[in-house]
């Protein structure tokens, strides 16, 4: 929380390098880019929990996996929206079928499909197992979409042909000091905090059902 508050202040008034084209909009690095970091971390945690569920069969891990996925989806939507706001000013329109935009949209669709799949199954154990299998499969199918394809295709996005997320050379020391220790952990921890709250509620509900 403290990190995000500091980020809000520094992100808006802190010094940034003036680069052509991106200019002051480079401040979005603190928000947009670190949200994608948070999403990837949350989805990876969900993946680990899905694997754990398949290995142990404990329903606890299933709840973890779903809630981390939910939080990941929230950050995915936030990342898309912040990106579109940025693109509206920099590229002139919010959506231009850039490979990075389509990749993000595909990720969102895949994880929404995961939720639909869960909704269609009623038996708790079966739901946990089938959705864990789909979750793992989907995560690995997503890797080429998010990590390989953007490196191959041309794109207007900062970072251009190389890095799928951003151009590491754009930021100067002042920005790195804010980005790595504040922005990335800040958003990630916010995600984790929301998730743990939701997990606790879910576990309490389960207990209530068992005692009723």
């Amino acid at each position, binding site marked *: 929380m403290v990190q995000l508050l500091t980020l809000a202040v520094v992100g808006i008034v802190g010094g940034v390098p003036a680069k052509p084209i991106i200019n002051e909009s480079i401040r979005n690095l603190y928000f947009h880019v670190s949200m994608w970091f948070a999403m990837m971390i949350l989805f990876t945690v969900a993946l680990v929990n899905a694997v754990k569920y*398949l290995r142990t069969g404990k329903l606890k891990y299933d709840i973890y996996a779903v809630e981390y996925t939910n939080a990941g989806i929230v950050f995915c939507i936030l990342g898309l929206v912040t990106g579109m706001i940025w693109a509206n000013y920099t590229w002139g329109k919010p959506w231009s079928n850039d490979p990075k935009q*389509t*990749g993000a949209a*595909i990720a969102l*669709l*895949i994880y929404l*499909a995961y939720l*639909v*799949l869960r909704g*269609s*199954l009623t038996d708790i154990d*079966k739901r946990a*197992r*089938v959705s*864990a*299998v*789909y979750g*793992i*499969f*989907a995560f*690995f*199918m997503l890797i*080429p*979409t998010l990590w*390989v*394809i953007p490196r*191959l295709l041309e794109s207007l996005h900062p970072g251009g042909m190389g890095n799928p997320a951003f151009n590491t050379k754009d930021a100067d020391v002042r920005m790195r000091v804010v980005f790595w220790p504040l922005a990335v952990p800040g958003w990630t921890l916010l995600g984790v905090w929301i998730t743990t709250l939701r997990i606790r509620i879910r576990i309490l509900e389960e207990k209530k059902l068992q005692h009723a």
Partner: protein
Amino acid sequence: MKKIIALLRKDLLLEFRQQYSLYGILLYVASTVFVLYLAMGQPEDHVWNGLFWMIQLFICVNGVAKSFLQENRGRMLYYYSLSGARDFMLSKLLFNTLLMALLSVLCWLLFGLLLGNPVSNGWRFLGISIFGGFGLSLVFTFLSAIAARAQQNAAMMAILGFPLIITQLLMLMKLSNTAFSQVVQDSLLQMILLLAALDAGVVVLALILFPFLWKD
């Protein structure tokens, strides 16, 4: 290995005995392409290519979907005790890739017949379409195994599968675009290798994950 071949033979035999399902899917291909011909006439290269892959996708969903849906619970249990989950999955994957290769060729012939044939490098296009059909059928075979566990499984296949397949489909479209001219691009090999790696990954994941789906 023997078990896989036996299971594959069983699937092939079943297909020959119950010919209606094979004819059904062949007719599906023919009528879709015909409707497309009525709607579009003879479109230009880009449209042709896009339409071809969309039709491939729909054929794949319909052709492959039944592989797990047609097996009922009792028979699944019987196979399980007889051969084990991995052999079963592998035989299904093999069968579906064969089926899809057949359907791809048919689809291309019909496209050439009705919508015109703008392809200048025929062999390359044929190779790409069979290779692409191979990748599509692998993904959808595994998804049909997942969807078979859920209700409304046919609709579920589309919901689960389409977002997963978009990337692969886009790459295939780019790849097959190269067959419209004689120019050879450097990135061709890179894309083929990437797709092949993706296919291999799907097979490995399917083999690792399928036993978990199976247990009930």
